[in-house]
């Protein structure tokens, strides 16, 4: 559980924010900014996943599909319909919210692995759609030449600007999620994760909350997609595969339940593993190539190690060290 607003918490968050937003001023290396832009995109998705999994106790193996719907919707709107980028983003959010709603309704009947399978099935069906709906998606060859994000005449056309945009959106998404978590609905969601029966007994509208959380997490994934497509300038179906959905769930679980910071840290950690050369300065070429050769193993072993040695997820570690909970220091 998040601690009460506390001066130390505010300081930590402020320092983290300054550090994140100062990066483009400290470095002009596009590579570093690119990598951390991808991290930011994943953070936006994981914010929704953290709400869905960590607070509402639901697992979705189909969120890569929402990510993809958002990416294609925005790219299509901007390229083919000539819409401005913010309108494309709005379309991405509306479509993924609607998709999330449609998937959430029947899924309410399903529990555990059956829900996982239903969302997985949705993801796989959407993958077929991405490949076959070629007038919209460009098929397996993908959609290229997607313009940079632009608000009015202002284009986010450098790596630094794209980084700020993505992390700005990520910060807003996190703030939004933080408010949801601290609201009455948020407390209800935590109750839900503990015991549905108990929550119902307390007069909480479980159905409504489940659907709302699903819709929020789907549209956050869609939003992330709309950012990714325009930042990279190219999208193809392989970016929205089941593998990505599974890794997103892994990041949420590694982050731990009932926490926002945990999943965010897990996401930063896991997203950076393949790009370790970006964060470890002075890495030699041969060391880099060795790491790249073994990255799948490192990734897999990291997942296993965290699950074994940090049973409550990274969120539990933070709670133990969190300010405002004096006894844990």
């Amino acid at each position, binding site marked *: 559980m998040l601690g009460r607003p506390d001066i130390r918490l505010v300081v930590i968050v402020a320092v983290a924010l300054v550090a994140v937003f100062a990066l483009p001023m400290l470095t002009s290396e596009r590579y570093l900014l690119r990598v951390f832009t991808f991290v930011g995109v994943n953070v936006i998705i994981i914010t929704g996943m953290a709400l869905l999994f960590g607070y509402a106790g639901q697992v979705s193996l189909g969120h890569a599909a929402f990510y993809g719907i958002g990416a294609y919707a925005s790219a299509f709107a901007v390229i083919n319909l000539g819409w401005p980028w913010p309108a494309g983003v709005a379309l991405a959010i509306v479509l993924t919210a609607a998709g999330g709603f449609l998937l959430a309704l029947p899924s309410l009947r*399903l529990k555990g692995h059956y829900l996982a399978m239903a969302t997985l*099935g949705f993801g796989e069906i959407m993958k*077929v759609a991405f490949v076959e709906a070629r007038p919209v998606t460009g098929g397996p060859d993908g959609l290229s030449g997607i313009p940079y994000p632009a608000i009015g005449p202002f284009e986010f056309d450098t790596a630094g600007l794209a980084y700020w945009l993505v992390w700005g959106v990520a910060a807003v998404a996190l703030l939004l999620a933080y408010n949801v978590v601290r609201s009455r609905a948020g407390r209800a969601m935590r109750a839900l994760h503990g015991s549905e029966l108990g929550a119902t007994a307390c007069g909480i509208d479980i159905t409504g909350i489940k659907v709302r959380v699903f819709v929020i997490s789907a549209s956050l994934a869609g939003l992330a997609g709309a950012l990714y497509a325009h930042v990279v300038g190219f999208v193809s179906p392989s970016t929205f595969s*089941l593998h990505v959905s599974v890794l997103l769930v892994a990041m949420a*679980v590694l982050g731990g339940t009932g926490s926002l910071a945990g999943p965010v840290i897990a996401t930063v950690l896991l997203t950076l593993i393949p790009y370790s050369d970006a964060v470890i300065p002075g890495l030699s070429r041969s060391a880099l190539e060795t790491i790249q050769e073994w990255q799948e193993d490192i990734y897999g072993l990291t997942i296993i190690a965290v*699950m074994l040695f940090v049973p409550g997820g990274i969120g539990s570690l933070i709670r133990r060290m969190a300010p405002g909970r004096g006894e844990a220091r």
Partner: protein
Amino acid sequence: MGGVELLQFALAGLKNGAIYALVALGFTLVYAATGAINFAQGEFYMLGGMLSVWAYAGLGLPLPVAGLVGVALTAVVGGVFEFLAVRPRKDGDLLAIIIITVGGSMVLSSAARHLFGPLEKALPAFSGTGTVSIFGAVLEIQSLWILGLTTLAVLALWYLYNRTSLGRAMRACAVNRDAARLVGIDPRKIVTVSFVLAAALGALAGLAVTPLTQTAFDVGPSVGIKGFAAAILGGLGNPIAAVAGGIVLGMLESLSIAFISSTYKDAIALVVLLGVLFWRPQGIFGASRREKV
């Protein structure tokens, strides 16, 4: 469309269904013991083929021996994986175990690439590349092997569950872990045994299919998804339901190709699966699920 062609579609569906069934059986075994889905099940399928090819082409063993070696080694890998990565997670948290198997699947497929390279490997058919004719439709002899091995696996599982004390312990454990512990069954041992058996079943499927499809380090996930879908379609936890789910899924795909479109065969099969789930949330043959707390 003629009757012979229809039969040909049915046979193809049956053959693919048998493959899915073997993989689904592995999912079901691990689910019964832990309540979790084993995302590394597809990698056991991959390893069964890869290690058999290695034993056959690399060590020069005769094919039947190489196949046994492949399946046995994969079973050992399954047991070691459980012992090193699943058992230490003492609280048995479902999602934790699932995510551990996700990590495991990445490590296993990557290890196969390190050891055997990225290219596909071939294995000869068990008893020639001939075919048998069934009312004009044909089936590869290798497909008979697949169907035969699936049947054998089901019978062996049935025997294990109903006629051996180990099997009874496994069933008791699936129903209630704590009660099983009270009567002297060690649930940890049951989990290990389940992983070993699941790995052996997956490996058996991989071994039987490799002569038709070849194998490579990355074949696991696609077959794993089909096996998972089959297990869910039938209803988790029940071996007969898993086999039925596999056959139904194979038939669905084959008939989708026959009557609708090969482009959308997977999508159609999945739409039907989703329809079934929304109609029967426990799968076609699944009993009402006990609530896991």
